[in-house]
């Protein structure tokens, strides 16, 4: 369900694990992240962008929704943008998440692997990483504003900030 604020900026539903949300202006796209990566690709001139909620670093032949694995999510996100006229050359990236709430125990240390995979793939596809808020022991809530390209990050116990 979308909601509309009094300034006519639509707030999209949460982008869940493995999902990709194409975001046209003016809109806000939220996601809540633990060890997953919230990757925003924004095209300033076209005023559009895309938010991917990436769960795991590599597909290694596994099937699943394209947004689930970094190595399927990023090419898919780029293709969706190209289909809307937003070429890769005009894109910048912002990355959020990759935390580890369970410290040294718990299921895998997947946050670090996700950060590394996304960083490498952005280099491979020639998309500059403009800014990031990653790692640590806390979850994050992100809100991407497709009109400005800004990404607001909220971490428990800290003041919200924008990257």
């Amino acid at each position, binding site marked *: 369900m979308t909601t509309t604020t009094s300034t006519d900026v639509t707030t999209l539903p*949460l982008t*869940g*694990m*493995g*999902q990709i949300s194409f975001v046209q202006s003016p809109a806000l796209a*939220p996601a*809540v*992240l*633990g*060890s*997953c990566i919230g990757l925003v690709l924004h095209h300033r001139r076209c005023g559009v962008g895309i938010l991917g*909620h990436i*769960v*795991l670093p590599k597909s290694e032949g*596994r099937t*699943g*929704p394209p947004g*689930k694995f970094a190595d399927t999510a990023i090419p898919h996100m780029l293709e969706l943008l190209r289909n809307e006229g937003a070429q890769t050359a005009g894109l910048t990236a912002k990355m959020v998440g990759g*935390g*580890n*709430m*369970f410290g040294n*125990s*718990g*299921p*895998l240390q*997947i*946050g670090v692997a996700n950060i590394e995979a996304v960083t490498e793939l952005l280099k491979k596809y020639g998309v500059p990483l403009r800014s990031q808020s990653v790692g640590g022991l*806390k*979850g*994050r*809530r992100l809100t991407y504003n497709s009109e400005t390209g800004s990404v607001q990050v909220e971490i*428990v*116990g800290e003041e919200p900030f924008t990257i």
Partner: protein
Amino acid sequence: MTASDPILDPTLRILQQLFATATHDASSAMCRWTNGLISLSLDEVREVPLEAVSTEFAIGNDLLTMVVLNLDGEKGGQLILAFDEANGRKLAASLLGREVCTDSEWTPLEESALKETGNILGCAYMNALTRLIDTELVPSPPYFMQDYGASVLEQAVMTQAMTSDNVLVCNTRFQRDDEDLDWSVFFVPTQALRNAMEDALQTSC
């Protein structure tokens, strides 16, 4: 893709029975701990698509107070006891025999009371499951955290996410004098533990 209906899916139905037994034991332990105030009586075993983990369990994207116990090892998982701030504070006050604290920071004593609650619940659950599936499950010491519930649940389902696009989450809710409380216990097994539970149930049928 939608969540599996536990009533229709035979494996989920059997797992529901297994968790109902474990919940009964945990409820007895909780009753003793809270002098009869709190019981656990509702539980559901659900398999949901990954993208619905944040939204299917009514934890929203808000801050929660949680006590987490890890089950280390391949056949492991997480037990997450979750409240909103107000309910967590009320429980701590009730256990300590004090007025509800209004300071923004939790005191070590309040945290300790909640951690002990998690410990009691976790051990009761794990003892019951150990008995039922004949696999030893030993929870870690509990730890207290405040974070977005969706973030924590998201990481807990990670080993299942490696091999499946649907994940199994067991959710138990609490009651006080027939009134539902806004607390939850989530048990998220690793894929290996999930396989072991299903194998044990197949053998016993």
